[in-house]
């Protein structure tokens, strides 16, 4: 799975958390700008585990602040398996 596809999935997922159009989320902007909170971060780890099959810590959303950064991290985890 390419980083681009993963990033698009992150954007879609975050947009569904916030109930806003996908077009409003820029994959290069920090998620914190959109009002992502700690509860969303917990949801995100469950959704990532469902989608990609491994656990990530909820601090992921702060360690890798943008959808592209998260996608890059996930892609590297996937390729190292």
């Amino acid at each position, binding site marked *: 799975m390419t980083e681009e596809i993963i990033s698009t999935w992150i954007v879609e*997922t975050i947009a*569904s*958390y*916030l*109930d806003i159009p996908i077009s409003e989320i820029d994959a290069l902007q920090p998620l*914190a700008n959109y009002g992502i*909170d*700690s*509860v*969303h*971060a*917990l*949801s995100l*780890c*469950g*959704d990532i*585990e*469902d989608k990609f099959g491994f*656990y990530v*810590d*909820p*601090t992921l*959303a*702060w*360690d890798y602040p943008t959808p592209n950064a998260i996608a890059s991290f996930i892609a590297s985890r996937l390729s190292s398996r």
Partner: protein
Amino acid sequence: MSVIDARLAVEAMDARLGDPYSPSNACSWEQLCRNDESGERPHDAEAILKEIGAGEAFVPFELNGSLFQLDHLGSLVRAVFRRDPALGLGFGVTSLMAAATIWTAGTTEQKERAAKLLIDGGQIAVAFHELSHGNDFGANEVRALSSESGFRLTGNKAFINNADRAELIVIHARTSETPVGHSLFLLDRTKLSLPPSDYCNTVGVHGCRLSNISLEDTAVTGSALIGPLGMGNSVALRAFQVTRACLPSMAIGAVDTALRTTAEFAVDRRLYGFSVAELPYVQQSLAGVFADLVASDIFSSTAARLLHIEPNQGSLYSAAVKFLVPEILREDINILADVLGARFYLRNGKHSIFQKIMRDFPALVIGHAAQDVCEATLRAQLPVGVRIEDKPDEELQRAIFDWNVPLGPFDWTALQLGASGKSALFTALYTGIENHTSVDRELRAIFDELLDLSIWLRSTVMQMSPRERGLNGSALSSKATKVYARLLAASACINRSNVCRSGTQDPGSGLISSDAWLKIALYGILGYKRFLHTDLVEQLNPICYGEIYEELLSRLSLNTTFDSLATSMLPIYSNINNKIRV
């Protein structure tokens, strides 16, 4: 460590605390009520706790303490809560919360310092709370600015237990403006000059001294940092999984005494020519509360064991216990107050401990993650929580529910911030019901209702939009969260019942293996409280309440506890100097 060993540890503790009925004993209910009226700390009772080394219970075995298994920590400290919840909270539990962060992420030096302090009977304050932010500690504003020699702290912490005397203080402070911007610090108050603060006036827990901590450019060295910089919330939320699972287990002790007091009243009191205890509604109320206490013990002990066995799901189990058990216990206190009638608010006489427990209880259960915080933790993770194992590991299931399977020492570093994998406890709801051998019609009907609820829950969670799982979740997601916590509790009780039915000789197993107890316990867990739902729910045959009431009378006359361990409150314990290992 077996159930028998756990019982011995509790009875050794009770033997050291002395006769709770003897007014001359500092740890008697009468004396502790007198302390409460004076508004002072129960100094003599605390001196006993210090003398017997009660603080060792909070210190891991490898640091010379006696803490080994978390389920036994809950049942042991429950003995102190049976005497006085404020004594348990004031002497130790907030120290445990503080220490949990150190055991999770502290340096060897920090761990050794904290361990020695607790073993010597001292306190550690846990300073998170700021008036403007409550449980939302991610918004906390106390600042820690980096300096050449370490950090400089400025700001106010409010209503901190033991802030006036704790030798060490764990403080939560903002170290940057980023979302991972909070850190934890271990402050040595002997090296600081903190301004004195007035005590906060409270309705209950008079034996606890809450006050404020004001920091004004207070310098601490870099070695004060607990865990990595910026990881304060992560460390705290992992460490507090332990305290959130254990605190409700301890709080059962307070309601144990409330039940004992009420049952004694009901047996003695005569109305209309017969004793109050002969009224069917009174018997059913008392039996229902008793069944709830055993169920609450089983649920919280199971969650504590699961923190050892399945730490990847710890954030769910601990939040579920902290969410559900206090709610059950709070309602139980109200049911008992109805039985006590006017006695429930008397501040003197032989029943006065009851009003004290009623006042103290809210402080016990809101102090450490309010119900809505636990609900948010569960709600966000419902899709993970309802994942089911296709092929449950039988060995693992046995370790969870057979309390004679010893667990290794608790690994504080294994806990995760979020849950992952599949839930052994949720899966066990299905296997537990499948393996249960009872043919009781009422019980099988309850099992069917639980299975229907689980089907409803799983389909609701699958259809729920991610937004509904957020902080502003819908009423439907709130309902799903409540159902989830109740199903976990039901799973724990059904599976423990199975173990007890398989012929274990554990104390209390006769009660727990009975259809009567399991039916009443599951009714309580489902929220069908006695007499509150008469129009909505089919009532259980009163015979089952009679069976549990008989056991209650037996324990009352033998002075044994109303939890699953059934230990003696007045033990004859000859080997009193042995170290209590939990």
